[in-house]
């Protein structure tokens, strides 16, 4: 077109970013890549092509890792780990800093390569992905520097297997590698097979930074390679970002292996617009929410909930905005929506939308380029929660929408999902925003903004969006473990049947404690508890599946506990301590009678102390305000996990119960506890203490019975948010496997003993809370 013609049309015209440097880099590497193992590239082997999804062109040939190659990578990481950890935080900080600098120096090369490989617009790789990746290494260089001083009780986990997705290839690598290295771990990372190239360029950066060989190893290939990593016996921790379906499989596969696990999975994140919002800005926010990276974002604001008074106007504005989106060559600097990553993904998106008959579908009025994997920005209005597209993750540029009447209904709709990754709230009313942000089931909430990320603020989900946080102080626990050495825990058997007379001729019937009342077991069976000398101490009910169900229902009914103040919870915990103290002698005697030892008094005193300590923490386990680079705050709020099921320690009949109960309810959780399997009577005696201490019904529920029978229904219960096991029965694997159903958080002992007398409650508090980051930009 001539200048004169353009003056008439005022089109943008092409503004291509050159691919020359990136293509040259590929050619220089021979267009064929092996793996990066032990500080060097291996010879390329049989594998697969990496294609540019915008054109279909082959960019390079990659190698499918064999079992031997994975073994070699793990062995290299293992060899390097000890020395890397011993180097110390400040020593590691220098390498992380060097990597950050090198990422910055080669920023455009990374950005162009990322866009070629993934199809995302160059604006995003240039302005978002690569700068955030750099930021992650800078931030964690600082964390390495501070580790010894700030985390004196923590150490590296060891060798980490990391499996990352194709939507933010380098950024997800940074999220995984930076904290792992900072804390002294070494890694074996597998990039997604669609998008491997920037990980290989990153390998080159590691060499340039002089990173000791074996600290970072990168193996390439498809899911089969991921499975090898997940199943590898010499890997200590698995970190996975990807689909919920695969996350569930990994949970099941690692169950009982003792591997630490963090999962960052799918989402169907609500995007809530109230009638007093700046509607134009909320529309623009949707561009960043669902048309960012073609909607292939785990935390994409994909479920629009609009307040009825403005719904029609908002949808009109939105459709108008959609028509202004520019879709096309991802390397064009003037493009908003690039290519979907692969024909397979394009088909998934197309099929899901085509299969929907509900609501009204609007495709943006944009021309699709010939060839390449392109899908138009799409809005589907008028859906109901029962429609499939309101529930299932599409992972494409497709927004679904429904309306709500009240803030309460907005929260109800928002939380009507199996996922819980992120949520967005638009309102000019601070009262409203800060009221509902804590009510939303999500790990991240953005107020009047969306998709804000920073290394200083943790990212991660609740429910089936996975567990663990990446970024911030809260992210470090994913790559550290306590320094304390543990001892093996031997099974604690019940006392043999004595056949003697009752210790107390007046029968006291122990029942289950459900919803603040004593309840007979559904099955109608009891078992005797004998003393060491053979006296009958009493009978306890044998709880079963239905009792678990009833207990969880009672806990669900006590949801208000999460909203009580820390002060109130402290008062109740002090009251529990007071009432336990009043009966200290009786409990000590009971413990001694059951265990045949003389530790009862000490255990009772420790239990009273534990209640006091938990009460002390109830209003002091504060959140944080993170230093994120916006005018505003990111509030890291500590929220209760929800309903925690726990198999209490067998060896400490009272302290094992109180040691779980106290920190859990102090943080606002409700608990379903299985009492010490061999010595359950201290727990059943404790009902009266609970009754006299103003603990609301349903907050604490106690079952008795074989741990082996209670573990499965508890761990599989989809209404339970976390399961802990301190049982001396070997149930860790079974619990972890059963927990995959709703991806509940698990904390199991893997047959290791817990020192119940040790007073530090912080591990319990951490396990009893989730960190929710609420981003609140401000400015009038």
């Amino acid at each position, binding site marked *: 077109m001539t200048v004169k013609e353009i003056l*008439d049309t005022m089109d*943008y*015209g092409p503004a291509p970013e050159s691919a020359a440097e990136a293509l040259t880099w590929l050619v220089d590497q021979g267009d064929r890549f092996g793996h990066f193992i032990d500080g060097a590239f291996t010879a390329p082997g049989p594998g697969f092509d990496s294609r540019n999804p915008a054109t279909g062109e082959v960019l390079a040939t990659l190698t499918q890792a064999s079992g031997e190659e994975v073994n070699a990578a793990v062995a290299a990481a293992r060899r390097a780990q000890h020395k890397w950890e011993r180097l110390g935080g400040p020593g590691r900080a220098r390498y992380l800093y060097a990597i950050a600098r090198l990422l910055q120096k080669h920023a455009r090369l990374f950005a162009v390569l990322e866009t070629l490989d993934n199809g995302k617009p160059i604006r995003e790789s*240039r302005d978002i992905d690569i700068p955030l990746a750099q930021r992650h290494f800078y931030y964690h260089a600082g964390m390495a520097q501070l580790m010894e001083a700030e985390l004196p009780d923590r150490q590296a986990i060891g060798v980490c297997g990391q499996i990352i997705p194709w939507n933010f290839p380098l950024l997800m690598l940074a999220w995984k590698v930076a904290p792992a290295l900072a804390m002294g771990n070494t890694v074996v990372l597998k990039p997604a097979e669609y998008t491997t190239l920037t990980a290989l360029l990153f390998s080159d950066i590691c060499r340039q930074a002089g990173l000791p060989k074996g600290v970072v190893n990168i193996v390439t290939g498809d899911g089969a390679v991921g499975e090898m990593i997940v199943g590898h016996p010499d890997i200590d921790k698995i970190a996975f970002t990807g689909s919920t379906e695969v996350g569930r499989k990994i949970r099941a596969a690692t169950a009982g292996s003792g591997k630490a696990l963090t999962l960052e999975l799918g989402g169907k994140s609500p995007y809530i617009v109230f009638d*007093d919002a700046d509607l134009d*800005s909320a529309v623009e926010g949707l561009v960043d929410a669902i048309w960012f990276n073609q909607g292939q974002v785990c935390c994409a604001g994909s479920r629009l909930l609009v307040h009825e008074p403005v719904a029609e106007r908002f949808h009109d504005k939105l459709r108008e905005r959609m028509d202004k989106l520019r879709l096309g060559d991802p390397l064009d600097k003037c493009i908003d929506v690039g290519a979907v990553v692969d024909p397979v993904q394009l088909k998934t998106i197309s099929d899901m939308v085509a299969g929907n008959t509900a609501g009204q579908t609007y495709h943006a009025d944009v021309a699709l380029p010939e060839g390449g994997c392109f899908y138009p920005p799409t809005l589907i209005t008028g859906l109901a929660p029962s429609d499939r597209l309101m529930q299932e993750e599409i992972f494409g540029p497709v927004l679904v929408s429904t309306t709500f009447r009240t803030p309460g209904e907005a929260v109800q709709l928002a939380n009507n999902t199996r996922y819980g990754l992120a949520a967005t709230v638009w309102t000019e009313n601070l009262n409203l925003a800060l009221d509902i942000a804590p009510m939303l089931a999500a790990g991240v909430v953005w107020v009047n*903004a969306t998709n804000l990320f920073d290394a200083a603020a943790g990212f991660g989900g609740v429910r089936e969006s996975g567990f663990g946080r990446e970024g911030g102080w809260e992210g470090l626990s994913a790559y550290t473990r306590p320094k304390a050495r543990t001892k093996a825990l031997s099974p604690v058997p019940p006392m043999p049947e004595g056949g003697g007379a009752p210790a107390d001729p007046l029968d006291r019937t122990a029942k289950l404690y459900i919803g603040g009342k004593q309840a007979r077991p559904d099955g109608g069976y009891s078992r005797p508890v004998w003393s060491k000398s053979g006296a009958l101490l009493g009978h306890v009910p044998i709880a079963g599946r239905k009792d678990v169900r009833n207990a969880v229902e009672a806990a669900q009914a006590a949801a208000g506990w999460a909203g009580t103040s820390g002060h109130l919870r402290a008062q109740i915990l002090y009251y529990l301590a007071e009432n336990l103290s009043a009966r200290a002698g009786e409990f000590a005697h009971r413990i001694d009678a059951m265990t045949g030892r003389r530790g009862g008094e000490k255990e009772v005193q420790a239990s009273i102390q534990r209640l006091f300590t938990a009460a002390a923490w109830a209003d002091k386990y504060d959140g944080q305000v993170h230093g994120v680079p916006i005018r505003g705050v990111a509030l890291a709020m500590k929220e209760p996990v929800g309903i925690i099921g726990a198999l209490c320690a067998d060896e400490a009949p009272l302290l094992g119960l109180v040691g779980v109960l106290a920190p859990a309810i102090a943080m606002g959780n409700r608990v379903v506890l299985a009492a010490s399997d061999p010595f359950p009577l201290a727990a059943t005696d404790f009902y009266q203490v609970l009754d006299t201490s103003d603990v609301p019904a349903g907050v604490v529920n106690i079952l008795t019975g074989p741990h082996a029978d209670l573990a499965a229904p508890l761990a599989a219960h989809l209404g339970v948010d976390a399961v802990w096991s301190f049982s001396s029965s070997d149930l860790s694997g079974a619990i972890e496997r059963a927990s995959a159903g709703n991806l509940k958080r698990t904390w199991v002992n893997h047959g290791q003993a817990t020192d119940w007398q040790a007073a530090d409650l912080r591990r319990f508090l951490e396990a009893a809370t989730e960190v929710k980051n609420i981003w609140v930009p401000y400015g009038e």
Partner: protein
Amino acid sequence: MDMTDTAQTAHLPQVTEPRNPGMALDLDWVHGAQANRSAIERRAATLPGRRSVKKEYQAAWLLKAISCIDLTTLAGDDTANRVRRLCAKARQPVHVDLLEALGVGGLTVGAVCVYHDMIAPAVDALEGSGIPVAAVSTGFPAGLSPFHLRVAEIGESVKAGAKEIDIVISRRHVLEGDWQALYDEMKTFREACGAAHVKAILATGELGTLRNVARASLVCMMAGADFIKTSTGKEAVNATLPVSLVMIRAIRDYHERTGYRIGYKPAGGISKAKDALTYLALIKEELGDRWLRPDLFRFGASSLLGDIERQLEHHVTGAYSAGYRHAIA
């Protein structure tokens, strides 16, 4: 296309567009206006990274920017001859050789903007060019002279030949939340303008908040403004992208609800060609292509033209230019 084609280059909205008759003050609408500063700043900050025009497209866009400039002199030492020089530049804003190389003829700026006493020499110097003279008025820049004198000043300027009147609003009406007073003032100014079209200068740098900018924009449009304009150029902060975003979104709303297109004029602080491109992209994105013409969009600028000329020469020759190669105003 010839640049003298009326439909493309008409300078006055009333030539091609039905003129905004105004409407009754709708306080619900005014009070309902929201402007979330952080979100608006994010949009403004990311826009230059989202939109990019290169090569011949950039040259065309820069020519478009020139056609939308209100070439301005508002100095205490203005003289008739100084204004004549400015008008000569307005008629021939870019060196003929460059325009020939670009294949474009008949390019002029959007208007010449002066104080009242300079209207006569400007009208004289621009005769036959089709370039309107705009006069700042109503006690510009503070707008604190007696109200009847401010109204009378408009009448004098129109009588002297100004086709566009850039009025300043009483900032105190906004700061005191007296929307009725602002509406009445604006309506009176509009009536005093008669056939001349009226640009309402909000002096956004003195309104305190973006929400006030949104509300003042709406009130002035309701009272019959043909254009809304950011600044006098004399405030500490003049045109910014976030303020522009708020004002043009108000224009978009007004158009959606009434069907009338109101013009937009950012003024003050826009001196680089690259900034001009960003503004044009902002208008294109938020208001649409129809607003990318001088009857609905103007830059209030004095030094912008020089930078654009240098960029155009660079486009034509491939070499970076020097300021002295281009005629001064």
